[in-house]
């Protein structure tokens, strides 16, 4: 299977978000083109036309409110959509291979060896009655056909690599004997055990204490630097995302409304929704200030809205916003915005 050259839906997304000037690099690990995901057995579309690329050694962050489609996008990229959800349109490519309609067995061969995943609640993904060391060696023995002894040696190395002190001791402990931060490190050790090209991390630090969160974020950065790991990181906290990620995609109601390099997005946000998110984010300056909120509620999943989906909550909405689909336009180097105001700025600078 190769990437087919199907056109993304013509009215949206002139180029996949984040493609930039680099073009199709050989180091492109994950590529989503015009991805549509339907929920409730096709009754509604929760992800509408998401295009995204993740290159080797790059950390890409997806940020948005709950229900904005970031987790579904992640799950589609992992081939683990929940029951009743399906890829309706568009494609998922992994290392140049179209995996959109891959069989279950095909996905299984990718999981672990090419794709690793870490989720919010590590305790619920680990077997509570088996030692964490055994759960890691099991992966190594099944996926890499390692011997018992080699797997144990490798497991201890991995525990050390993810910053678990006393790996020998941790090896024999069951999940209940470890703290949340240690469990998340164990999950990361399992996720990277077979040297995957891509790590998908869905809110991995949301349940952790702030000091431990900082350590886990540092670990992800270190793994990226040392192994050239590509990371797709999901969080609702823009502060976490900007601290960790190289590029950011802001989700709103199933669409990417703005994407670009992290520094560019935080310094020069162009979409009113991103600007609002930055105002409500824990900016961490510890100064007393007005607590801002975003007025209104996001639209229902699958709501049929012509034009900009944020218009109803937008402080700078104009009649044009509801006229028709809003195209994503370039607002700078690798910076794309889906807003009529940004479009004007480009037409008449």
């Amino acid at each position, binding site marked *: 299977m190769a990437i087919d050259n199907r056109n993304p839906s013509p009215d949206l997304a002139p180029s996949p978000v984040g493609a930039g000037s680099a073009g199709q690099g050989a180091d492109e690990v994950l590529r989503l083109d015009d991805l549509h995901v339907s929920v409730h057995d096709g009754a509604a579309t929760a992800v509408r036309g998401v295009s995204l690329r993740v290159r080797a050694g790059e950390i890409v962050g997806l940020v948005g*409110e709950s229900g904005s489609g970031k987790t579904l996008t992640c799950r589609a990229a992992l081939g683990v959509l929940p029951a009743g959800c399906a890829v309706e349109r568009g494609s998922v490519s992994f290392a140049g291979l179209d995996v959109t309609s891959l069989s279950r067995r095909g996905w299984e061969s990718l999981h672990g060896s090419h794709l690793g995943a870490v989720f919010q609640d590590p305790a619920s993904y680990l077997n509570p009655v088996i030692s964490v060391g055994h759960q890691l060696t099991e992966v190594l023995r099944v996926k890499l056909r390692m011997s018992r002894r080699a797997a144990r040696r490798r497991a201890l190395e991995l525990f050390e690599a993810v910053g678990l002190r006393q790996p020998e001791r941790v090896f024999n402990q069951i999940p209940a004997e470890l703290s949340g931060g240690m469990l998340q490190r164990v999950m990361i050790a399992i996720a990277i055990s077979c040297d995957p090209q891509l790590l998908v991390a869905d809110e991995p630090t949301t349940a952790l*204490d702030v*000091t431990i969160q900082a350590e886990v974020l*540092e670990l992800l950065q270190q793994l990226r630097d040392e192994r050239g790991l590509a990371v797709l990181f999901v969080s609702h906290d823009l502060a976490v995302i900007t601290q960790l990620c190289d590029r950011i995609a802001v989700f709103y109601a199933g669409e990417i409304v703005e994407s670009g390099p992290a520094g560019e997005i935080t310094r020069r946000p162009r979409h009113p929704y991103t600007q609002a998110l930055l105002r*409500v984010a824990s900016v*961490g*300056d*510890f100064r*007393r200030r*007005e607590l801002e909120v975003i007025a209104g509620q996001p639209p229902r999943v699958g709501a049929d809205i012509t034009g900009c989906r944020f218009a109803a909550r937008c402080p700078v909405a104009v009649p044009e916003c509801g006229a028709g689909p809003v195209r994503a336009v370039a607002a700078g180097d690798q910076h794309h915005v889906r807003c009529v105001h940004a479009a004007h700025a480009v037409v008449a600078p």
Partner: protein
Amino acid sequence: MTADPTIRATPAGAPPLLAVESVDVTLGHGWRANQVLSGVDLGIWPGEIVGLVGETGSGKTTLARTVVGLVNPRRGRIVLDGLPISALRGGARRAERRRGHVQLVFQDPLRSLDPDLTVAEIVAEGLRIRGGADGEEIRRRVTAALEKTGLDATVLERTPGQISGGQRQRVSIARALAVEPRLLICDEPVSALDASSRNHVLRLLYELRTSLGLPIVIISHDLSSLAGIADRVVVLYRGRIIEDGPVDRVFAAPRHPYTALLMASAPSVRHDRPFSPHQLRRAGSGPVPQDGPDACVFAARCPFAADVCATQPPLTAIGERWSAACHRHEEWGALAQPANP
């Protein structure tokens, strides 16, 4: 929200509404006994918002449960407006609890609200248990409580599963307000919410304090959101209060290395911190010379631990209404310098 000095100004020397006095709490029995709180001293004055921060297992929730009488202190006492409520037993204690002077809003509304009851029934429950109000009075108070939290009558007949996360947290707060408490304790009221709903709920708490003069304790691990609304911050570490002071001064120059570590670790959109987390973490995993049963609780993680830290420092005043439990509170700042000039 900007600080309103008229609300914060409590005459010095005025008795606190709630006093937690040298409280020790042990959970479990025999070999499983675990001392969760050690010598906790804390006062809450009328009309102030106090942020209680600390990591998992530091005893924040146990302290809240002790204050409302769900846990008995092994030593020390809880005094509410002159009445030592922790010493009440049997009927007197049940009567005090029914009056609902201190209300606790639990962390996860989805789990603490009965999924089979409607919002109207949930908010009315405390009033019914307390008794002394007829149906008409209860309905009036329920509507008033919901109004105070910014909910309208459309949610009255819905169950917790049918409303959004932010609305559920408002219902928990309305349930607590219905019995007109004298003190509100919120256990991680916003940790399950995204940034926008979080600010909605924090704003609501701030407004309640302003309109009702209600003192509120907010338990949280998110320091920067507390900076927006709290007057005072109290930091717990392994069952001990290690710093307690006015929020603006503590956040401007924390005097305990753990407070500084919490601040440095908080994710930030900006990069203008006085310290990086690396400067405040102990390097390596070697044994800690100051470790022992009497050592400072933070010594094992503290990069500035010295011989003096082999004994637990008491919480001592270091400024006006500001105290910290660190032997080296004046020295460590200089030792941690020069990273970000």
